[in-house]
């Protein structure tokens, strides 16, 4: 049976590429997570670099440069420009260093807070109550799927991690991005 791979790192490992070289590549990739995210967001909106440049009133080479930048070289203005062009908002948060389990709890409390807020908002309106009920039902289903999906990954090879997480909006076909780290840069629709 021919072998397939779920990631570039997995493919490199199987191709017999030197371990040090493979780690170098992974580290390099980790330094460009925001730029990678901007590239993905543009593609998801089915925009070419030229179309994006038109929206941002800049040259295509500037778009290319932004999408190739190291995260440390990007400026907040670049994020705001991309977000505005794609009808997204930018949220930047700096949170205390936490253990992974605490981070999950932190986000679980945030879910609790927003879910209660939504319930409170809906309770005067019958139509909204129905809609929110359906949403809660879906959310439970999705959250269970997320945890079950993570549990399945317990025996998969470990990936290199950095201190930065980039999450993008949840839209049409997205997966929930459950990466949680010390700094979050999120684009929210």
């Amino acid at each position, binding site marked *: 049976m021919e072998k*397939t791979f779920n990631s570039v790192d997995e493919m490199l490992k199987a191709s017999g*590429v030197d371990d040090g*070289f493979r780690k170098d*590549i992974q580290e390099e990739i980790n330094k460009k997570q925001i730029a990678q995210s901007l590239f993905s967001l543009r593609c998801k909106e089915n925009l070419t*670099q030229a179309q994006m440049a038109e929206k941002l009133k800049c040259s295509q080479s500037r778009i290319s440069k932004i999408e190739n930048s190291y995260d440390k070289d990007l400026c907040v203005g670049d994020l705001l420009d991309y977000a505005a062009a794609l009808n997204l908002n930018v949220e930047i948060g700096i949170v205390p260093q936490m253990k992974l389990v605490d981070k999950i709890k932190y986000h679980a409390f945030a879910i609790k807070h927003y879910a209660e807020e939504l319930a409170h908002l809906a309770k005067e309106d019958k139509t909204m109550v129905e809609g929110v009920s359906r949403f809660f039902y879906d959310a439970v289903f999705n959250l269970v799927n997320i945890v079950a999906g993570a549990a399945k990954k317990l025996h998969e090879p470990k990936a290199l991690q950095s201190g930065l997480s980039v999450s993008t909006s949840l839209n049409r076909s997205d997966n929930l991005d459950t990466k949680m780290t010390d700094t979050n840069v999120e684009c929210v629709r």
Partner: protein
Amino acid sequence: MANEPMKQNGWKLKTTEKYDSKLKWFCKKHPNEARAVLERLEAYFKTLNECNEPQQVTGAWIHPEPHGVKAITEKGKGGALKATRLYMFPHKKELILLLPTIGDKNSQKEDIKYCSDIVQKLIADEIKPKV
């Protein structure tokens, strides 16, 4: 339908023997060029998994080649890098991103022919009636 699981597009990578051997050689002889195209492969692959539509994944470093083959280039990664092409074919029906080979300017013509042959064979095999 309300309770469908969230979409997992699930594209996978697949390599050829030629790719495996040339990649190893490239990583040893031209590590900077290999690093440049492999980083971009990661970006392409991640985005493909998010979009699910190969035509949507565009950039100045993705070159269209005959028969739906695409080539990732090192362009924009610094002037000192030798021209390098990592060839790929997004096989939408199977959700496979096939990596037929990697090469430089000298092998470009031969590489493109090799990729085109592989893709044509792949498509011919698909439409061949099964007995």
